């Protein structure tokens, strides 16, 4: 079991938990956090290299590094792990953001407890991404959700109790549907030998779920994950939650946790139930299409930095689900790229907002201005993040959005000309409009917050970023730029998931649309 590298993505955080429990002072705690996150980054990079190497050697299994250890054999529950390009991308993303996040929360009070919960959360995230067993997946999913309550409730600001409770209950509400969906999948999968299994790969390849059941189970799972993916109209936990959360938590939550939603949506809902996905896509296309534009529009009028960012997250994550529902390779690749890109840049945003808030003690853009003069470093980083968010070439946002738009337009136009309805086409064009609205609200913030004359004379004696803040931001900026400049590497990594064997079912289905 320990020979499988993936297990260490769970073991290392658990070891970190133990280490934190033993820590005596803040220095040791920081040391543990930084060392651990460095190890995790190392692990994920090593995994990435290994993966590419093995694919290069012609390993064509849908998932590599697979391992499966019986847990509750009576129920057929295993601790089954395995990764493909998508999960590896997510793992790398998680490691980077945890690294940046632990630096962003350098001066948090009561650091031991904070990091304990943070690491527990990341344990859940890692476990979710590596596991291919529905039960294990779901367990880690909920492990990742609950620490959020305390992290926001204890270390948060503003109406933290309300927001924390709302966030937890809404997400758990989602996972209630999810649990039903997963158990339903387990019981309604007909394996060749008539047995049931929780293993995603087996279900996707040998198993088949009766179509009638799919119509019931697909919405259950898609909505269950979609709540975490901030799908309209289940997104309202996101603004309040993000607004009240401490910096690192917003980073991790918007950066990684919301990706669990998108990831689960295709890994469970789309893969295992392609027919239903194909037939019911229109419902969710409408919802996600709405949330793309809706989030962007409502971000235009917010005055709280975190609210602006939360709504833009709604818009961007909406684009992720939207692209997944296009059911074609390019768009889905774009969706994963968008997950990466949004994860990094929104983490950057929240880090910067936290740093600015820590200095000015306000997040209201009407009370700030001309920060470019006062804290040039943070301001420049903010502008870069803004450019990434409005899709400037050379930064990650552009790549992701263009991949999505091209993919979904091909799909939509194809369907339209094939007389298969213009829904996808129309909503693609609607989604394209979001690039303009995004530009509007990003530039509005940049103009109000960073440029122009200094609003508040007291801000004049504020200081610029400290070294750990610089480190945390630079990490993120570099990754954003890396994706933006060498996209082919990442798309190549991701693409084979969608063009691979595991995706055949869905692809065939896509053809049926025409």
């Amino acid at each position, binding site marked *: 079991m320990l020979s499988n590298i993936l297990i260490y993505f769970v073991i290392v955080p658990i070891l970190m938990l133990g280490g934190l429990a033993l820590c005596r002072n803040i220095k040791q705690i920081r040391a543990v956090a930084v060392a651990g996150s460095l190890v995790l980054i190392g692990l994920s990079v090593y995994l990435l290299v290994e993966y590419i190497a093995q694919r290069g050697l012609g390993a064509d299994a849908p998932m590599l590094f697979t391992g499966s250890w019986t847990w509750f054999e009576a129920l057929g529950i295993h601790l089954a792990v395995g990764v493909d390009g998508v999960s590896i991308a997510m793992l790398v993303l998680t490691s980077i953001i945890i690294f940046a996040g632990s630096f962003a929360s350098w001066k948090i009070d009561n650091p031991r407890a904070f990091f304990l919960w943070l690491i527990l959360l990341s344990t859940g995230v890692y476990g979710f991404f590596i596991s291919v067993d529905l039960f294990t997946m779901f367990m880690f999913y909920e492990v990742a959700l609950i620490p959020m309550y305390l992290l926001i409730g204890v270390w948060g600001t503003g109406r933290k109790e309300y927001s924390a409770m709302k966030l937890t209950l809404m997400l758990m509400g989602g996972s209630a549907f999810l649990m039903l969906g997963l158990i339903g999948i387990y019981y309604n999968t007909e394996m060749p030998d008539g047995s049931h299994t929780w293993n995603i790969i087996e279900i996707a390849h040998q198993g088949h779920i009766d179509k009638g059941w799919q119509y019931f189970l697909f919405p259950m799972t898609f909505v269950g994950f979609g709540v975490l993916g901030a799908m309209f109209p289940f997104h309202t936990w996101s603004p309040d939650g993000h607004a009240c959360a401490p910096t690192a938590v917003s980073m991790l939550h918007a950066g990684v946790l919301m990706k669990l939603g998108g990831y689960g949506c295709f890994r469970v809902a789309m893969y295992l139930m392609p027919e239903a996905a194909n037939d019911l896509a229109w419902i969710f296309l409408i919802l996600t299409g709405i949330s793309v534009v809706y989030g962007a529009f409502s971000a235009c009028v917010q005055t709280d930095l975190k609210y602006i960012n939360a709504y833009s997250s709604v818009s961007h994550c909406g684009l992720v689900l939207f692209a997944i529902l296009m059911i074609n390779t390019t768009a889905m690749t774009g969706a994963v790229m968008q997950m990466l890109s949004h994860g990094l840049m929104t983490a950057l945003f929240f880090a910067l907002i936290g740093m600015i808030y820590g200095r000015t003690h306000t997040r209201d853009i009407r009370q700030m201005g001309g920060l470019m003069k006062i804290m040039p470093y943070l301001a420049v980083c903010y502008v870069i993040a803004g450019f990434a968010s409005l899709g*400037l070439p050379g930064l990650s946002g552009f790549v992701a959005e263009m991949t999505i738009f091209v993919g979904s337009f091909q799909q939509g136009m194809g369907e339209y000309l094939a007389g298969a309805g213009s829904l996808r086409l129309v909503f693609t064009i609607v989604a394209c409009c979001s*690039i303009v609205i995004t530009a*509007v609200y990003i530039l509005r913030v940049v103009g109000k917050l960073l440029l122009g004359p200094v609003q508040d004379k007291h801000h004049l004696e504020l200081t610029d970023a400290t070294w750990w803040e610089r480190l945390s931001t630079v990490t993120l900026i570099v990754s954003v730029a890396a994706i933006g400049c060498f996209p082919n590497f990442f798309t190549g990594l991701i693409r084979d998931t969608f063009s691979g064997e595991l995706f055949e079912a869905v692809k065939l289905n896509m053809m049926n649309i025409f």
Partner: protein
Amino acid sequence: MEATLPLLILVLPLLMFLFLGLFGKFMSHKWAGIIGTAGMGVTMILAYYTAYLYFFSGNFVEDGTRVQYIVFNQDWLSLWGNLVIKLGFLLDPISALMLVVITTISFMVHLYSNGYMRDHHGVWETGFQRFYAFLSLFSFSMLGLVVATNIFQMYIFWELVGASSYLLIGFYYTKPSAVSASKKAFIVTRFADLGFLIGILILSFTTGTFDFMSLTSTPLAGVENTYIVDAATATTALETGAGQMFLGGSLMTWALVLIFMGGMGKSAMMPLHIWLPDAMEGPTPVSALIHAATMVVAGVYLVARLFPLFMINDDLGGAALDIVTVVGALTAFYAAVVACTQLDIKRVLAFSTISQIAFMMVSLGVSRPEVHDNLGYMASMFHLFTHAMFKALLFLGAGALIHAVGSNDYTAMHGLRKRMPITHITFLVGCLAIAGIIPFSGFFSKDEILTACFGNSIIAYVWMSMVAGLTAFYMFRLYYLIFWWKEHKVHEGHHAPKDQPWTMTLPLVILAIVATFAGFVPFGDLVTWNGHPHHGGINWMIASISLCVALLAIGLATIMYRKENPLPERMRHLFPNLWTWARNRFYFDELYMFITHKIIFNSICKPIAWFDRHVIDGTMDAFASVTNKASYAIRGLQSGNVQSYVWVYLIGAIVLGGGTVAVIFLFF
């Protein structure tokens, strides 16, 4: 041709940007300026060499035709099927031409800024290094745009020039006007780019390729095509694509019109022109480089790039080219009229820029194979070239004046001809060139444009000649008002405006010389739509007419503005409304304000935000409160009295039994 040289042309400015951007604040202003200028100088030399090789080395001419040559083409992002975004370097007449134009102007501006970006006491502007970094970024993006091998690369750099223009307009970021101007510029162009993007999507869907060479190489154009043909697929796809109807227009028409919308945004065609006048908030060298010579002609370049497609579309009865013509013509007239009434010299120049670019658009729009074998195409490229020179000259001159006087408003600067002789002469040259007076460069290019118009339709010809007249009129109005009249008292004393240091005057002189003689460049041999040399000399009939018109206009300007006199006042009272409307730019900005603020912001964004907070979120909270209310409502069940407990127990038991009995025996 090995790739290193062209590659350097792109990489050098990029390195400049990174270097100055990251380490700029550790180096002195002086050195930042020198490094930036030197870097650009090298780039210019490389560009010249490349252009020389392309045009004159003869390696790129196959049986009398200039070929399109792809120096390198690197996969960047592979999308659907063979839709692959590549970053490459395409060498063909127009890109070579643009290389020359961009690097020349850019170098001039780099040099000029060394002087411009400090005040009279030689104190440098704050953020001087940043300025140079941004200039280099812009040069990089612009060069990348013109050498794009595929439409998506063009879109990428299209966005980048937009961003760098945003940064440069907002260079004085503490000035609210500058901030809002930069924001406006970016958002308006972004809106246009939305059209561009969708256009690209449609085009790539119908043709299955991004590559210009595959897109534009097609025999459909009616005339035999000599470009390297390598994509029959694209051709057939185009036919079918042109066949597929979508909401009335053929897919191809839609694609081209939408792409042209992107061009309208960048090239400030009506009604998307509103950002350009405000963009004058940026430093004047920036206006000269970006908003006069290079970036704003990107739209023209885009149309020229896709010209074969437009022609195919025209043959198939699509309206794309006509739309280009109409938009151009309207814009040209509108901008010229507005230019006659502005007070701010940079705004006058801005509107004249809009009008001149519209000229190029029109000349592309009227260009047809049967009219002197697409004379218009060549003419518009020619005008692009000359206009870049003399408009940059005018802007830099204006910069010199502003720098000397310290105000944009020419009511503050009368009678400067004695105090600033060099500036005066060069500025005059610029005016003559743009007015189209023989032998200055403007004459030749404008003449060819008018010829093309004449060949297409008489209306276009008359209309554009009228605009040409207006051009001459407002330019000389400007000229007289600046350099003649009685000069202000304030100009005496040691603060008197005088000619600027050599860093600023040298570019003026150079550009003046170019602007004078550029007309004699044998342009027809170099740049034509299909690479064939084009030998149509000057059409003297048209030339003389337009010359007369120009001279008449100049005469009128002389009468009205030579020295202070009541004529202009009377003119104004002759058509008061026209004057006020023109003075207020026909209230376009107000219209946009209304649409964006009143409609979009107040009637869409705010309601949506409210809806989200109160309806969606309210529903979620409602679940919680309903649960709480229910829990409060049923608390009476637990009254604390044993007997009531037992009541409930008994009723429960009986209902459980009786209910089941009833259900079973009544319904089953």
